[in-house]
């Protein structure tokens, strides 16, 4: 009888452990999958890259020329937001109110866009205030890989790798989330694949499995 008692307690403990582990998204240290930090400006990729279909490299112009794709300078945002200071719906709403109150339309600025103006050191209507220094926006870096890995965007873009392969379907993300675990094994799955599929780099795969490809 005493033996059965021990067996039962063991079983309960095992099940409990399983339950705990499954939903606490157990991850190895250093694995940041599904990391989705709150950014200083609620920039929506879905709206810009998805709906308005702005190409990735318009803002992340470093991707094809350097190791870092680079986060766009605030002045790049100002290329459009010098004119667009609120969403279409807000404008239409304001227009109706102006028509209903019979007054002139005031220029309105949405909260997020006002953050851009503030960063540039402009007033709330996007006009520069002389003498006021702007301060760059401190974005939170989402995709962090260890500093002993030399990852360069340039060869990947040259080889025709699509941004979504590593960054996931950004065009549908309100806030950027790391969809892949970016582990070494995950990178190697792609590096080991035969490369006839990628037109720009019909390389033999052995070359891409050298340690010095990413570690030096």
């Amino acid at each position, binding site marked *: 009888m005493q033996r059965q008692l021990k067996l039962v307690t063991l079983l309960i403990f095992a099940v409990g452990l399983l339950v705990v582990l499954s939903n606490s998204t157990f991850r190895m*240290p250093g694995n940041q999958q599904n990391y989705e930090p709150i950014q200083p400006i609620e920039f929506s990729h879905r709206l810009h890259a998805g709906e308005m279909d702005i190409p990735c490299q318009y803002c992340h112009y470093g991707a094809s020329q350097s*190791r870092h794709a*680079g986060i766009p300078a605030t002045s790049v945002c100002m290329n459009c937001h010098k004119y667009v200071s609120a969403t279409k719906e807000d404008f239409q709403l304001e227009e109706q109110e102006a028509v209903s109150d019979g007054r002139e339309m005031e220029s309105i600025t949405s909260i997020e866009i006002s953050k851009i103006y503030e960063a540039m050191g402009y007033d709330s209507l996007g006009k520069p205030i002389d003498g006021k220094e702007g301060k760059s926006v401190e974005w939170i870096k989402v995709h962090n890989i260890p*500093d002993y890995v030399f990852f360069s965007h340039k060869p990947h873009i040259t080889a025709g790798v699509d941004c979504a392969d590593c960054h996931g379907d950004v065009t549908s993300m309100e806030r950027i989330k790391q969809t892949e675990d970016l582990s070494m094994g995950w990178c190697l799955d792609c590096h080991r694949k035969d490369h006839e599929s990628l037109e720009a*780099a019909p390389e033999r795969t052995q070359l891409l499995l050298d340690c010095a490809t990413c570690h*030096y």
Partner: protein
Amino acid sequence: MSKDKKYWMSKNEISADEVVAGPADLQTTSTDWNRRDFLKTAGFSLAAFMTACSKTPVNKAIPFLIQPEEVIPGKAYWYASTSHACGSGCGVLVKNRDSRPIKLEGNPDHPVSQGGLCPVCQASVIELYDSKRLFNPMISEENVTWDRLNTNVVQGFRKSRKNGQRIVILTETITSPSTKYYIQKFLKKYSNAKHIEYDPISYSSILDAHEVSYGKRILPQYHFDKADMILSLDADFLGTWISPTQYTKDYRKNRSLDADHISKHVQIESRVSITGAKADKRYAKSVSEIFQLAQDIEHALQSNKAHGLGSELATELKQHKGKSLVISGINDLSIQILVNRINNALENINKTVNHRSPSKQKNGSDLAVAQLLSDMKSGQVGALIIDGVNPVYDLPEGEQFSRLMESIPITIAFSQKETETSSQCNTICPSPHYLESWSDDEFTSGILSMTQPTIQGLGNTRTLRKSIASWAGIENDERILVRNYWKKNYSTRKKGSQSFNRWWDNLVHDGFVTIKPFPLTMGIFRQGTLPKSDFKKGLTLVAYPSLQMLDGRHSENPWLQEMPDPIMKLTWDNVACISQIKADELNLNQGDIIQLSSNNTSVELPIYIQEGQHNDVVAVALGYGREGTQRFKNIGPDWIQKKDTLGENELVGERITHLLSRQEGNIVFSGIPVSMTPTGKKADLALTQTYNTLANPENTAPPSMKVRPFIQETTFDEYKKDPSSGAHHGHQVVTLWKDDHPYEKHHWGMAIDLGACTGCSACVISCQVENNVPVVGKDEVYRRRDMAWMRIDRYYSGEGDDIDVAFQPMMCQHCDNSPCEPVCPVLATVHSSEGLNQQVYNRCVGTRFCANNCPYKVRRFNWFDYAHNDELENMVLNPDVTVRSRGVMEKCSMCIQRIQEAKIEAKAKGLPLADGDIKLACQQSCPADAITFGDLNDPESDISKLVEDPRHYHVLEELNARPTVGYLTMVRNREEEKGGNHHG
């Protein structure tokens, strides 16, 4: 891809205030507990499991505010500029990563550097990021604005003019025409002002001798490529004499083995220098013997009935009339006049000794400084402006000079750092590093070199040109001052017909332009009378500039302090070199401390027993014992048995300039009678090589191998007869394994020409800069834990003072059957599919078996955390190369980051990699072009041709490690009978 030189006018317009999401080490303010500490603790403590759920530290990515047009973070840009690290003015290309210069490379088109650089220039990039630099103008230790300083200074000038005192500008050789122009303006404004130039390592006797012989005080330009016979009397022209990089490049041009003859280089020297090491024939003579020899030669040329060595050399020189070159590095008027007479008799003028477009690199005059000293003594000097020199340290009368300075009301020091002289001055004008300043320089007449800033100025600094101009009433910023000068004078000197703007843009873009030299008519040769020179017999001191410290201006540069002296392999110290016989006389051995005393001053120095040194000569390096070197007290790691890097005097090395004397106004550096008394104390010398010959020690030498066959040497005649002469024909190497690892894509290989390598160690420092190799301090070097990835092995042969020296640069040989890879348990070092041995730092656990198993002993281990976290200093780190942590093995990676970058660039352009697209840091910097790198799978590449060369061999071939780094037999131009090659 060749370096696409991005042209950029000047950096200070763009506001690269915030560094963008660049390399991790520059990534800004994550929690201070960075990723690596987290992983270390997580790995070490079994809490790794529990921390799985907690977040790794948050990293920020901060872009520019306003995007500058052409700055893409992570992409390197190259700017052409000129180096002011030493006086020879080599043209450089500055690699700029994320708006900060991190690497210098010789500008291949520049006539002085011709693509190479010396170690001092390679290491000068770290002095830009030095938190101990002077960043703010000061008046008597109190920060002031420039305006207040200007008013105060001008007031002082007027007061000194009023009471009839003189204003003296004391500088080193000014090579910038615009600075000279503004100094003339200043001298005109303050009528009693005077400008004196002097060089700490003085060449004024050469200039004075030319004034005696030809009536004009010039320093000729020496063409070593046109000389078939070179006789050098104590002139280390491949190491430190006037413009070594240019001379090495030219020297090599006339020694290509395909020609039917190569130049013959005879060196007569008192100490052992790298030029003596490379000479075809080397004689060790004391300074008085050299003076006697010069007289014999000059006499033998007149009437050929002399005898001895002098006549031998004279007859040989006569065979090379018009194609020979005699030079001397001894700063003595009579010897230089003799040299002029000999060159004139051999009709070398304007063939190998160019008077028409002389060199303007050295223009100092010791007499003028002696005169200044007497003026100061008599109180005639009211204001003293000192720029770029350190008289309190440099001059023999240093203490006297500093005492006299107290009585001068206005003393202004232009200097980057706190020096012996600047601490005596009441006004400090911080001067910028040359990488952040504008300058135009005419180092050799006819070539105008441009220096442009490659970073926004780090402090509130001002050059001499700007201050002098503003004191002379011209208020402008640096660029405008230079540009306006040339706008006025470019038409008289330009070649070709370009508008000023285009001419100026090309000048800044290419870094130099050829212009018409100043018209110069030399007088006809006059025999002149030899002044009285009393060179005494007996023990004499020879003070020489060492290759790493020169005159001491770079003494606060850690890379140079830790660079092993090419001959002695000594770091962090200067010593008294004496011969073995002299040491036995006083029964001293290596490291004993002696007291050197001459004209009632003395200094205590450890001794170093130097093979090949003349018995009556004590050679001591200048440039040590400098103020400011006390900063290196704790540069080494901190642990219980650590000894700090400084000597008893709390400095690095000892100052010896106060032992020097003056002769006819010229400072005498060599031949000073001195006495040596042992003090009984002992010092540890931090040597990177303690066994100096390929022969085994007598008591343990096996009969089958008395000498180890790593250096192959032959003579030019033998080479012409049989190109593979000097090779050790070992037995044929066969392997048991079928070749599982063919290299299909690339197979990188390297070859080093032992005949070309002068041992100057430019490659060692260039490699250290490129690959973030740490500095470990004197105690760690003494414990044989230096970290440089390359070392230059220096082997002596022969005995007494008739020695041969062979240099062998030794780095990872990237063997195909590497002994280090099979023994690593965790796959931290494996072979790439392109023939390179890869060392993966983050996988290494540090068992060190690979280092033990490497027959070449080229692997380095991080015994401690050597990296310093000085925020400003770490700006010089190359972001493409990981900074290694403690407990990790590292070695030459064959500049894998350059190979990868070139491959990525070629793939992006869709072009195949051409031979020469990839230049390794060492290969690029070598002034002697000794190192060749390339793809062995490409039959047309240089390396493939060299591998077929009969001179090509591998070190330790019989081990069948199959290294990819090969060496080429050294060929000397000497007759066979001189005992053949000692290396057997």
